[in-house]
């Protein structure tokens, strides 16, 4: 694919010519993969500094990305070869190259250095469900040990934190372990949790942080009002000012105490209202504008919040006491976590099965430990260039690894605005930090690619309008207008005058209250799609020639919650619009799985547990496998005759086989015997149901690798349920002319002409800190003093919450960015019409829901807007304000007729004239292969060449006819061979031909082997078989073997055949 690069892209591509680290900040659709591929190609083609493909390390996050990068690289190299830039076709090298995912690269290194790490080099990747359930079982066992023999600390822990169950302490231990899995060093993290987070320095730092957080809010309030000439606002600003920059927490607290009527915080009966004491009521005499009112409300809210916190936190030393009180508990919980870790490691080691996160931490050891410094050096020197794609998704551990192996040769590409994998521990701060530094030429150089080659200018300009208002360094991690706004790049394709039909739309609709929200929106979207198709809406799709009429496949619905997908499938089914869903199926909660579990369980409980047997029986009989008549089925359960049903009788018969077979065999046996697949036709959706069954089988393979036995495997599924373990499988990515529906996360990296963005009024849950206990990399483990201890005054908890909420919100903004930038032709939002005004939902939202603050930075810059508290995506949309909405967003008349008048989708017509073909019947014949002799050796027998075998070998190369043994130099050997040759049997061999090690394969009898010596006389029609034995030749066991030889030789030669055993040590023979 020939591609023209612009100057920015070329600069990034050619950066390889100079040693150094580079970061490319590339907006959506800016051709970053093309840049990366081109850079690889130029590096490899550069004759001035020859670089092999194997000297490149290119890391990606998904297999798909790695495969795509490989494909593109290979194609680039092929074209370079044909274009004369390369003398040799290097494309095959790509297959062996390290263009790979982080996971695969770590695994490769760990396998390579397995011995250095004391590991089995054949380590495998275990399915998470097995590891997670084992982890839970170990934890439960350890806790039970502690309950049985509690030490005083554990006793106190149980008293303080265990009420109806110990879920909370279980959660905190698992929380500690989860975090530990993701940090560069587990050991350090555990130690930190026990020591560092309880140090005075730590506490002082947090105190300072608290002060700064409060002061920031005061500052924001102060700056908001400072420019105002309104009297009342000036007063407000003065109040804010009285709290501004007081230097430390205590002084700030004193300031609160000094407030009128509040001599001591202890005496204040603090309610929200008092927080805004000192602020006057609005009054017409002050001539407040709407904007003033808005500002005032924000100032009050900010200062009120500060005061409330001061009041609640109060004497910080008391909080410290409380905090230190929890130290022994935290310490104990960390120890338990470590113990679980240790036992789990044993379990994994024994089975040679690890998770990818284990592999990553093992790989970390390779580059971090003193004793492995040679390994680090060799990795460092192996790669001349290291490139990382989607760098914004890097985790701390990955970053640690990259920084270790880098050698002033890093090239990182990414878009921080598309970092949406915080839940997988991506840390966008890493990218943000590098971008900041590199922009100042500290440690490297940054490039920016903002020209978008994906979307129409209408789409780009609307995206910019939204994000320049909401993405700031503090929320979203970038200053959007500065170097992050998208630039329209497809000028030649779309021209430069906007067309109204591509302007972003909001579909506003009257919700039918009897239907769910999703069903309402699905219907509106279905109608809109049909409308566009019927009317022949034009789209211009990349890679196609010219504009064309829209087709089903040009639409994508990006849903924020996966559970909406089935609703869309239903509605679109009714509308006859083909729809392909990318959805993860939760296998633990579907009928097929439930049935499968019953089938698996029946043999285990039959004859053991009557109730369970009956339950399994009822389930299987009522399922699509039998479709048993209900009267018959339930009568048999009542009168007990079910025990004579073939299902039960057969299961009893198969029980031993099932329980003693490898699990995959048992599972496939059951699936086969009960025709789970054959009968799928009865329930439909065959392909996806088959995939589920295939997944059961794969899971069974995995269970075998985990060395589970049948009963344990059945128990494993109970554990999955008990511990609520994720047991899901990937989505369908089938092709065809169909609309798509997927989660926003799943849409990353894809593009569609028209995207629908529904469900904009859902609440954004910004904090994941809902539990009683918190574990954080930055703040350690926070426990309340006990179960009934209040936390709202716990400032550490509030700091975490605040940080988490800000990060969460930033992530939502980026998610929204990813959603909108998928569109090439048009973006369509869905918003329910609100009661009263149709436009109400477009107005600035009421203050209690969303606060828009013109929050200034610490430096007092005035151009940064910050959205402090949006609750929904609709709030983002609404931020555009009435002016913008009025001008740019067309409101569609979205009144929906009920029922939605669906246009029939594409009808299918059958062709006639069926063809019938003869069936082919082939009966499989299964026979066991037998081995008559030792033609191929077990690995364990390799080289068993002791004396007998040595002699064996000498005889093998000695001619029994010429008896020439001059080639044997060793006298002892010579004597021994002579002794054998002296046997009268070999006296007259004229006319005979000798065959040493006459190996054969008799496929009819499935016998193969090799005869030590075969002497054949064609004219006399005689054959003699000699088999060497080291000494004893009297063992009767040899007869069987000799009989097989004789039979074979007689059959193929048709001669009179004799067989002899030869004792090598004695030189004697015996006819067999």
């Amino acid at each position, binding site marked *: 694919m020939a591609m023209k690069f612009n100057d920015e892209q070329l600069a990034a591509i050619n950066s390889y010519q100079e040693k150094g680290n580079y970061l490319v900040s590339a907006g959506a659709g800016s051709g970053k993969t093309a840049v990366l591929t081109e850079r690889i190609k130029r590096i490899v083609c550069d004759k001035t500094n020859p670089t092999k493909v194997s000297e490149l390390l290119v890391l990606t996050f998904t297999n798909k990305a790695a495969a795509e990068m490989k494909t593109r690289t290979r194609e680039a190299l092929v074209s370079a070869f044909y274009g004369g830039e390369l003398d040799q076709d290097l494309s095959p090298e790509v*297959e062996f190259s390290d263009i790979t995912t982080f996971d695969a690269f770590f695994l490769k290194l760990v396998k390579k250095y397995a011995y250095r790490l004391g590991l089995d080099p054949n380590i495998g990747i275990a399915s998470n469900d097995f590891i997670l359930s084992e982890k839970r079982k170990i934890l439960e066992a350890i806790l039970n040990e502690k*309950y049985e023999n509690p030490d005083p600390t554990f006793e106190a822990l149980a008293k303080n934190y265990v*009420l109806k169950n110990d879920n909370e302490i279980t959660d905190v231990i698992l929380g500690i372990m989860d975090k530990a899995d993701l940090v560069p060093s587990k050991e350090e993290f555990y130690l930190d949790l026990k020591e560092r987070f309880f140090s005075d320095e730590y506490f002082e730092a947090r105190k300072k942080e608290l002060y700064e957080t409060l002061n920031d809010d005061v500052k924001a309030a102060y700056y908001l009002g400072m420019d105002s000439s309104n009297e009342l606002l000036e007063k407000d600003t003065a109040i804010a000012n009285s709290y501004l920059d007081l230097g430390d927490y205590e002084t700030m607290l004193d300031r609160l105490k000094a407030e009128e009527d509040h001599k001591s915080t202890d005496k204040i009966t603090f309610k929200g209202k008092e927080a805004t004491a000192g602020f006057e009521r609005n009054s017409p005499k002050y001539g407040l504008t709407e904007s003033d009112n808005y500002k005032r409300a924000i100032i009050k809210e900010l200062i009120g919040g500060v005061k409330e916190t001061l009041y609640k936190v109060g004497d910080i030393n008391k909080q410290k006491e409380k905090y230190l009180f929890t130290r022994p508990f935290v310490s104990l919980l960390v120890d338990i976590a470590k113990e679980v870790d240790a036992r789990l490691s044993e379990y994994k080691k024994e089975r040679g099965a690890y998770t990818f996160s284990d592999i990553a931490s093992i790989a970390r050891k390779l580059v971090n430990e003193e004793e492995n410094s040679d390994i680090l050096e060799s990795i460092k020197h192996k790669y001349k260039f290291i490139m990382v794609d989607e760098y914004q998704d890097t985790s701390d551990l990955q970053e640690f690894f990259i920084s270790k192996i880098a050698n002033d040769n890093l090239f990182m590409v990414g878009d921080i605005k598309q970092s949406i994998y915080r839940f997988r521990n991506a840390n966008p701060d890493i990218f943000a930090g590098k971008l900041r530094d590199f922009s100042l030429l500290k440690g490297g150089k940054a490039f920016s690619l903002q020209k978008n080659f994906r979307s129409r200018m209408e789409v780009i300009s609307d995206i910019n309008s939204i994000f320049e208002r909401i993405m700031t360094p503090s929320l979203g991690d970038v200053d959007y207008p500065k170097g992050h706004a998208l630039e329209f790049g497809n000028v030649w394709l779309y021209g430069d005058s906007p067309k109204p039909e591509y302007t972003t739309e909001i579909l506003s609709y009257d919700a039918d209250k009897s239907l769910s929200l999703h069903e309402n929106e699905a219907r509106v979207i279905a109608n809109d799609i049909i409308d566009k198709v019927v009317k022949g809406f034009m789209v211009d799709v990349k890679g196609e020639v010219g504009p064309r009429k829209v087709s089903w496949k040009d639409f994508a619905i990006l849903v924020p919650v996966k559970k909406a997908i089935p609703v869309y499938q239903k509605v679109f089914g009714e509308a006859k619009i083909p729809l392909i869903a990318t959805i993860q199926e939760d296998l633990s909660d579907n009928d097929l799985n439930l049935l499968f579990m019953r089938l698996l369980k029946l043999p285990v409980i039959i004859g053991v547990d009557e109730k369970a047997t009956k339950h399994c029986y009822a389930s299987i009989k009522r399922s699509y496998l039998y479709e048993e008549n209900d009267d018959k089925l339930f009568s048999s359960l009542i009168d007990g005759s079910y025990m004579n049903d073939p299902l039960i009788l057969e299961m009893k018969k198969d029980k031993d086989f099932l329980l003693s077979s490898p699990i995959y065999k048992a599972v496939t046996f059951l699936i086969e015997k009960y025709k789970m697949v054959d009968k799928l036709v009865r329930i439909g959706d065959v392909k996806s149901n088959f995939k589920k*069954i295939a997944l059961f089988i794969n899971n069974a393979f995995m269970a075998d690798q985990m060395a589970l036995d049948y009963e344990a495997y059945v128990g494993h599924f109970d554990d999955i349920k008990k511990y609520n373990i994720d047991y899901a499988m990937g989505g369908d990515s089938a092709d065809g002319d169909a609309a798509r529906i997927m989660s926003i996360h799943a849409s990353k990296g894809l593009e569609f002409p028209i995207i629908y963005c529904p469900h904009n009024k859902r609440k954004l849950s910004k904090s994941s800190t809902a539990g009683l206990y918190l574990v954080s990399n930055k703040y350690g483990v926070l426990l309340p003093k006990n179960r009934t201890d209040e936390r709202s005054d716990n400032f550490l908890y509030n700091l975490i919450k605040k940080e988490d909420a800000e990060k969460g919100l930033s992530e939502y903004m980026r998610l929204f960015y990813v959603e909108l930038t998928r569109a090439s032709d048009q973006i369509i939002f869905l918003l329910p019409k609100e009661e009263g005004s149709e436009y109400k939902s477009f107005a600035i939202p009421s203050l209690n829901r969303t606060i828009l603050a013109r929050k200034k930075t610490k430096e007092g810059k005035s151009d940064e807007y910050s959205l402090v508290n949006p609750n929904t995506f609709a709030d983002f949309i609404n931020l555009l304000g009435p002016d913008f909405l009025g001008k740019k967003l067309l409101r569609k008349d979205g009144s929906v007729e009920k029922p939605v008048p669906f246009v029939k989708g594409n009808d299918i017509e059958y062709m006639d004239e069926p*063809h019938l073909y003869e*069936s082919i019947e082939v009966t499989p014949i299964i026979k066991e292969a037998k081995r008559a002799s030792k033609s191929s050796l077990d690995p364990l027998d*390799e080289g068993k060449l002791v004396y007998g075998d040595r002699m064996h070998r000498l005889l093998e190369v000695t001619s029994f006819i010429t008896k020439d043994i001059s080639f044997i130099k060793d006298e002892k050997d010579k004597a021994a061979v002579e002794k054998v040759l002296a046997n009268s049997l070999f006296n007259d061999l004229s006319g005979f031909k000798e065959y040493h090690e006459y190996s054969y394969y008799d496929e009819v009898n499935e016998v193969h082997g090799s005869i030590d010596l075969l002497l054949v006389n064609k004219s006399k029609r005689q054959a003699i078989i000699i088999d060497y034995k080291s000494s004893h030749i009297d063992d009767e066991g040899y007869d069987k073997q000799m009989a097989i030889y004789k039979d074979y030789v007689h059959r193929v030669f048709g001669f009179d055949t004799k067989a002899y055993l030869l004792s090598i040590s004695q030189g004697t023979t015996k006819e067999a």
Partner: protein
Amino acid sequence: MLFEFVSEKKYVVISHPSRKDYYLLKKKENPFLDLSVYTLDELRSLFDYNYDNRALEYLLKKGFSYGVSKDMLAAFSSDLFENAVEAKSYEYLRNELIEKGFLFKTPHPEKTFENVIVLVSGYYGEIPLIKTYLNKSGFDIEPVLENEDEENGVGTTLDTFKDPFEELHYVFNKIAYDIKNGTPIDEIYLYGVSSTHIPLIHEYSKAYGFVVDIDYRLRIFDTRAFRNFISSFLASDLETAIKEMRKYDDDKNADKIEKFARQFASVFPDSKEKTAALYKDIAKTIMPYEPRKEKVVRVLKEAVSPLHGHVYCIGFSMGVYPTVVTEKGFFSDEEKARLGIPTSKDRSLWDNARLERFLLNRSVVSITYSEEIFGESQFVSGFAKKMALVVNENPIALNEEGEAYEFAHDKGAFLASSMLDLFVKYRTDDPRRIGYQTLSGILDEYAKYDPKYTGTKAFKTNKKYSASALKNYRSCPFKYLLNNVLYLDESEIGFPARIGTVFHKVLELSHTKPSLDFDEAYSLAMDIEEGKISDPSRRSEEKLPFTAKERIILLNLKEYCKTSLEFQKSFEKNLKNPYFYSEKRFDFSSDKGFSLSGYYDKVIQFDNADKRSSFIIDFKSGTESFDEDLFKEFGLSLQLPLYAYALKHDKDLASDTEIAGIYIAPICHYGLENPDGKELEELDNEACKMGGIFNNDKMLYSVIEGELAKSSKFFGSLGVKNDGSWTAAASKRVRTQEEFLDLANRAEAWIALANDQISNGLFLVDPLVLTHNRYDACSSCPFHDVCFVDKGSIKKQSLSKDVGNEEEEGEE
């Protein structure tokens, strides 16, 4: 033309293991042929050092693991060991082994190559290495390469498909066509089968009528035999373990296990654990026994084309082909290169060369891959493209002349229906559409399974109902059938329920054994629940002792129980001449043809003016409350009205009593543990307040609480305004005697209705699901795997007074 052998000459064939049998069969055609076959490894062992188990044991005893020992020996056997630099540190070990005769050389290797013709087959990239070895024999041997080029094949195509369903559909049709045209099935091979293909191939095989010899190899380690062996070995000794294993697994795997177990039994005479670890290591390197099959399409495991055959390559995606051998082993690649041992790069290149040769071989009929396989995206291997194959851009190439489209038969329902799933994708001119037609008969049954209840039978029941049974019926008749008629619920009584039982018992003991102090009562209640002391008031069931954890929890909860008890007492102390019935059983027959039984948790009768009044109290350890709306509309929350009804019929209790109130008393409310800033004491009373409905007689109120107060200390939402009228919240909670009677009568009517339906065998799958998360009969029902109802099809109902939108939704 393939190489032709003649009887007069002597041959050595250096053959890839997969072709060994082919050359051996040549001897059957011509038994006089003097032909020896060596693999590359066997050739190597002629010239390099060999070792045996004694060498292995020697290293194991020195403390090296099994894997390391094997790798070291592989390196030690190299003739070029002297060249090694880093390996020098192990040279002493190697010398020791040589000295002891554990590392040794084959005598007179050159004799093998005296006057022979050497033919190489199935090796390509390895040829330089083979030549190096041959030259060591002292003869100037230039091996002959097996000429495979002229072997006749059909010609190769490369096709891409959306998923393995379509891919295999195509491939199986081709194979069926091939068989129909006379190709012996044993000459047909599938290459590229991965574990994800296996179940699919299995099903397709049935549909097409030929068997594919899929052989999924585990390790001996994964077998039941080994598991039996090793667990018994750790518990006893070797002989017992072998016997134990043989009890269940008298098979080839047991043979293999016994063999190596005996061989290595003496390596660590003092440590059973070490021996067991060694056994495990060994067991991981050995494949279990698999029987051979015939008349099957074979699965080719390595890219060596059989010398007669039609090969179909599937799953030809990048990352899988060509295979890349990763660097592993005790010595690094660099060191291996010095030692003259093949490095991972060498092996990769060999594989690469073999694959290249393989793909160009005319026995390969087709190469296919699918873009998606069970949730994973795949990309076509660039390797295949590079081979300059006939690349067919169209995903499906079925229009070869004379080739029939659809060979699936008999069991083709699966195939056809799977295609039907994707109906929308196929245009009317797609040739596959013809295929559907051949299967139309089978498809008549498509998607017919309907899990709705079709029973008509009324099962014999005793028509005796408890409150919970009736609730089951109201929530879903089918659930009632399974739970209360057939007793299929296997779930055991959970610990939370046992906490409730203990609390109930403590509250009961406070009346039945008033002499006990609280602590004594609590521990007695625990003893009774554990079955240490039999409970005279109830049927004895099998009781399990509490675990240590449960004991701790019960002790932690003790205070909460005490608070509840004291609250109850503080309430009771105001009553006049109270008479308590605790855990009182009722059991009576109604004249409407059913009977009722159960236990009131507590009934208090007391004097109120000139009447006797009764409180009916049900203790709940959870958050459940009485919802009269649900009762009236759906018959849920039936329990308290049912007790009111029972009270009216209970001959043991004063019959002229009037109902003072029916209540749920929270005895271990979640509120207790979620203080939200409230002081514990303040909270206790709040959380202990009883909820339900109350007699509207204000006199009664004054009897219990003394002066009329703004809000009751004992009853939730009950209060009186200054003017003496009920507060707004209270007026929703107070009822006249008539209204209480009405509730009781409604309860009777609900029961009569249920009884009627049950008697008529109406057990429809009809779960009650209400909007606003108010009730969902399916949410914790253990019988979904019997009813198989489509949850999406359940029509959610709402209370007539419900308005507004649905519940908030959670995030992904």
